[in-house]
């Protein structure tokens, strides 16, 4: 019998490999792999496209001891498709006897500079773990996730560990979660409420976002002069 621990990364971003969510999750997955844990990654937006993929998702979940959910914050909570997956997991667990007691970790990132804006989404994940009989193993809220994505693009989509100063806080938090998941008996309180904000002043974040992201993209699409449109104004 194979007794090696298994971890499954559930990527809840429609952007897949280009997403900040996946970058954060992959870093944690690699850390766990280095500690001897077998790892697997599933992109939920692909998994929900067919029944066959859904079966694959559920069999991967069944095989895993650790579930890591990583997603972008959509209107203060989880994207609808990710919520749908959680509903399906909950229904599935209710339908079987003695469901596995997975350890459940959630990573939420948002486009605002404040990590605390992820708190409600992480509270939902925590409640999901409690209500489905899993062990809540920690949550990480990342502020300015778009900033990480932006820097990753500049540096050619490099992994989190190669972004250096930009991602140091996230790596430190994810290292703490790794420590908890791999060291039995450690008090989980230490990894329950992790938050990381962007290492730049808010005004700079706003300026960079406005000029380098929105204005640049809208101009490229030739809609800068229409960006304030109110199509549904009565």
């Amino acid at each position, binding site marked *: 019998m194979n007794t090696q621990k298994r971890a499954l990364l559930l990527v809840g*971003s*429609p*952007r897949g490999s280009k997403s900040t969510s996946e970058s954060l999750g992959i870093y944690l997955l690699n850390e766990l792999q280095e500690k001897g844990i077998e790892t697997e990654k599933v992109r939920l*937006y692909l998994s929900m496209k067919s029944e066959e993929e859904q079966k694959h998702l559920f069999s991967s979940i069944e095989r895993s001891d650790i579930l890591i959910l990583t997603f*972008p914050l*959509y*209107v*203060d*909570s*989880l*994207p*609808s*498709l990710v*919520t*749908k997956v*959680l*509903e399906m997991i*909950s229904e599935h667990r209710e339908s079987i006897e003695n469901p596995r007691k997975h350890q459940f970790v959630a990573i939420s990132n948002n486009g*605002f*500079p*404040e990590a*605390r*804006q992820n708190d*409600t*989404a992480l*509270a*939902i*994940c925590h*409640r*999901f773990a409690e*209500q489905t009989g899993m062990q809540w193993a920690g949550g990480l809220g990342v502020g300015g996730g778009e900033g990480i994505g932006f820097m990753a693009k500049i540096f050619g989509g490099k992994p989190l560990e190669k972004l250096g100063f930009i991602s140091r806080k996230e790596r430190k938090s994810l290292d703490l979660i790794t420590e908890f998941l791999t060291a039995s008996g450690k008090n989980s309180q230490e990894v329950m409420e992790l938050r990381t904000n962007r290492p730049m002043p*808010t005004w700079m*974040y*706003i300026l960079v*976002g*406005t000029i380098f*992201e*929105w204005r640049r*993209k*809208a101009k490229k*699409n030739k*809609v800068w002069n*229409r*960006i*304030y*449109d*109110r*199509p*549904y*104004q*009565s």
Partner: protein
Amino acid sequence: MKAFILNGLAEKDDALYKIIHDDVKDMGWEVNVFSPRDKSIAPCQGCFGCWIKTPGICVIDDDGRDVAKMAVKSDLMVFLSAVTFGGYSSDLKKAVDRLIPIVLPFFVKIGGEIHHKPRYARYPHLIGVGILSNSDEESERIFKTLVARNAINLHSPLSAAGVVLRDDIPEKIKAEIKTLFTKVGVKR
């Protein structure tokens, strides 16, 4: 006065939905309803096309576009949902995620936090009604916090949220609805 009900309830809660819907109508509101479960509505792709390609309109051409349109033409928005791990059902969330076109990509500071700037001059008030099978204080707390957070991000001038139980008698449900409407300044 126009009320826009986003009904994220499942079929099993239809009787409850009818009580709430009829109660809002009895208060004299002109009621528009959007039930995601009966519509063709794709999940938001997080592409920001509604900001930088077709400003104010979602790039996905399906029923989801009506959510943003009906929201900005209303005086009050009502979110109806089974309380799902403290949050909304995936059905309601599918519609809520498609509200992003009603704000701008640019930022504004509200209450010491950064949020997106309003696109429109006025926005509807927001009421959230959650349905639970059994009393669950933590889920209720999360649900109410979520509605309050949504009200900030969606620029609702006033908001209120409450939870009713599936077994509650109609009079109790109506009393809760009345309380919520009073909180946003609308009385029977």
